[in-house]
């Protein structure tokens, strides 16, 4: 019996444990296994094997029962998931349904989740921009949150490292507000996007419109072919899972790569309850898992643990990792864990029309989606009545004009013609930085637990006055730029979206220099429990305006490098 237990502990002991298999967890798995560490990846959802488990990927529109609409019953049952732009008949199987995983909203908050191998990397919008020096210096310069313990030059080589493997389509634009990366060819702007680029360049100093940078293989390199991925086919059906591996997901890229090393153990259906702390060694010794299906409790052990459960779930797991030493959650002596949650303000849109360049239209589909306007606000100095800035998308298109007033032969002809096209319709939406605030926070319920015995999460996050000033500025500046380009019928619109719906929730376990005011050090280690690393959205000290996933992946690769070196030196 004693021997059996020892054997059982042996089979449940690894060099490294990674909690979560999304974009950052997948990267941790790839890096650890490539460096020769026996690695256990725990994923709370089911397995999703690249291509094999993409049931809708090759369906034509007419093969979808409701032509990609969501049924009324589904909308009633899942109001949160249904508010996500990507939740459709062809993708719904990759989203968490509201009732399956409840949480407590102190204020309206849409928590969009994908519980499966690959996590939300199957579903993401694939927009990938580097942070700039200006972004990392933000909190120190403007006096909010705490100073980032790293600067751009610390992460620059890791951005390159990640970009080369992921495959990022983009142009070398030479902007210090949005540093260039190791790019594959960018996707060109269309006629009116390009016209707007020129107009902004001419009329507004320091403002730029560039091709959106995205994680698509515009021209695959040998490293991508080795992953089994090929050129993006412009299907733009990405969230179904791509049979070509045309965009980056853990499923198409890092997870199979890690599997090929022979060092990966992937365990789906593994709900992590907490991290186990060993008082004697002053380190974490493993994790407690509840099997999703059998509800059986079990423990796994490792020398180092990476928490990549997605920002708010990482907060939840750490807060729930209570011990005599850490009664308020692992490494949470200062009581700041779960606080300073921030996100992106996506509430503003603007649209207009353009009657020029009517000799052109777009033919086909652009995987990048169009243009991107990097933040130009408050960059060199504070110039507005709100802190920090905003970035924006920019797109233009035309569509066939169809008069559907009639019936019969006349209507049939209208529905099929390809001869009469609208003028150009242009549109943009804002991606605003938000300032992390102590009162934007999450915490565990003291009574209610889910089916797996894990406490429910309270989420108390809201917009602030600053966000509305920022939005006003977006409306004004975009209107100015639209007018200068000769666009007409300019309309601004508040799309009323709730915090969380941007799917860029960040913070709660922030990085910083000082254990008194932050949870993680400059290597993403818990200040007070060094063999636990957090490299998903939870680690973010501030939000900047960029889509954050590329930064999580770069931080992860950097942190694994540090962890492996530290293990070898005996520092962990």
């Amino acid at each position: 019996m004693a021997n059996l237990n020892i054997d059982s502990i042996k089979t449940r002991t690894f060099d490294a444990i990674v909690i979560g298999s999304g974009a950052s967890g997948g990267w941790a798995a790839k890096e650890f296994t490539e460096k020769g560490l026996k690695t256990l990846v725990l994923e709370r959802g089911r397995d999703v094997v690249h291509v094999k488990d993409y049931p809708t990927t090759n369906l034509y529109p007419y093969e979808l029962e409701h032509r990609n609409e969501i049924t009324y019953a589904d909308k009633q049952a899942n109001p949160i998931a249904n508010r996500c732009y990507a939740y459709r008949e062809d993708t719904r199987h990759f989203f968490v349904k509201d009732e399956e995983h409840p949480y407590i909203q102190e204020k309206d908050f849409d928590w969009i989740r994908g519980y499966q191998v690959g996590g939300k990397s199957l579903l993401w919008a694939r927009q990938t921009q580097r942070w700039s020096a200006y972004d990392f210096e933000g909190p120190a310069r403007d006096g909010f949150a705490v100073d980032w313990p790293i600067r751009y030059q610390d992460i620059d080589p890791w951005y390159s490292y990640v970009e080369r493997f992921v495959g990022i389509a983009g142009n070398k634009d030479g902007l210090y507000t949005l540093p260039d990366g190791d790019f594959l060819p960018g996707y060109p702007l269309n006629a009116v996007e390009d016209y707007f680029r020129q107009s902004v360049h001419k009329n507004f100093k320091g403002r730029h419109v560039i091709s959106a940078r995205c994680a698509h293989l515009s021209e695959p390199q040998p490293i991508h072919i080795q992953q089994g991925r090929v050129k993006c086919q412009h299907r733009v059906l990405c969230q179904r899972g791509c049979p070509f591996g045309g965009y980056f997901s853990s499923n198409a890229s890092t997870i199979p790569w890690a599997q090929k090393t022979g060092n990966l153990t992937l365990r789906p259906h593994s709900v992590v309850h907490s991290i186990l702390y060993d008082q004697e060694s002053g380190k974490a010794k493993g994790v407690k898992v509840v099997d999703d299906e059998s509800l059986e409790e079990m423990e796994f052990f490792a020398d180092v643990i990476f928490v990549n459960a997605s920002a708010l779930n990482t907060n939840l797991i750490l807060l729930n990792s209570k011990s005599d030493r850490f009664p308020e959650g692992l490494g949470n002596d200062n009581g700041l864990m779960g606080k300073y949650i921030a996100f992106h303000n996506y509430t503003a849109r603007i649209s207009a029309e353009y009657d020029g360049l009517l000799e052109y239209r777009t033919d086909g589909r652009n995987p990048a989606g169009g243009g991107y306007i990097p933040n130009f606000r408050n960059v060199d100095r504070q110039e507005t009545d709100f802190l920090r800035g905003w970035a924006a998308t920019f797109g233009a298109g035309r569509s066939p004009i169809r008069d559907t007033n009639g019936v019969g032969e006349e209507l049939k002809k209208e529905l099929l013609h390809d001869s009469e096209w609208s003028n150009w319709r242009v549109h943009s939406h804002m991606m605003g930085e938000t300032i992390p605030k102590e009162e934007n926070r999450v915490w565990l319920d003291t009574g209610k637990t889910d089916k797996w015995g894990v406490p429910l999460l309270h989420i108390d996050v809201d917009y602030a006055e600053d966000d509305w000033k920022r939005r006003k500025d977006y409306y004004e500046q975009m209107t100015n730029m639209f007018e200068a380009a000769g666009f007409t019928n300019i309309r601004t619109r508040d799309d009323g979206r709730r915090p969380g719906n941007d799917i860029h929730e960040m913070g709660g376990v922030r990085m910083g220099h000082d254990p008194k005011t932050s949870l993680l050090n400059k290597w993403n280690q818990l200040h007070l429990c060094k063999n636990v690393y957090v490299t998903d959205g939870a680690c973010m000290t501030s939000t900047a305006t960029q889509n954050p996933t590329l930064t999580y992946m770069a931080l992860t690769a950097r942190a694994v490098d540090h962890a492996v070196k530290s293990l070898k030196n005996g520092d962990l």
Partner: protein
Amino acid sequence: MKVEVINRRTALRRLLYIAGGTLLLPACYRQSGKETIALTHLVIDEEQENLLAELVETIIPASDTPGGKELLLHLFVLKMVDDCHNPEDQEAFITGLSSFASLAREQEGQDFIKMDANKRIAFLESLKEIENEEVKRFYGITKRRTIQGFTNSKYVMTDLKKYELVPGRYNGYFKMT
């Protein structure tokens, strides 16, 4: 005998409607024995289904290419209303369908399905002016769903306006001719 059968059918339908189950009318209960579609919320008799088929055929008529009836757009309309519309829409659709039938008789002195193509079109044109909200709502839903079903049908997407899954193209400066 016939009356009895109809009553049994009606009773069966009501039972299924109340139970909230799937209404699948086996061919043996239908006078024509034609295939139909399983519905959860809507209760439609064969006569109404035939009327809907003639209506979608009038909206999208057969020409050198198939029309609404052949593409089964009436069943598509029913499917979408049954699964994707809220209960108010569903009720308005059913009530409106009956009102549509009686309005045709009142206004034109003839059942809609007995009218010739021109008369049908004229009747549909006249609906733009009417005040009857139920009929308006029913016709609005039917027309919208018919158009959606047509443009997203396999026939149109493979034979008339080819939907290209792969390889996709992208040209941002496509020159119009």
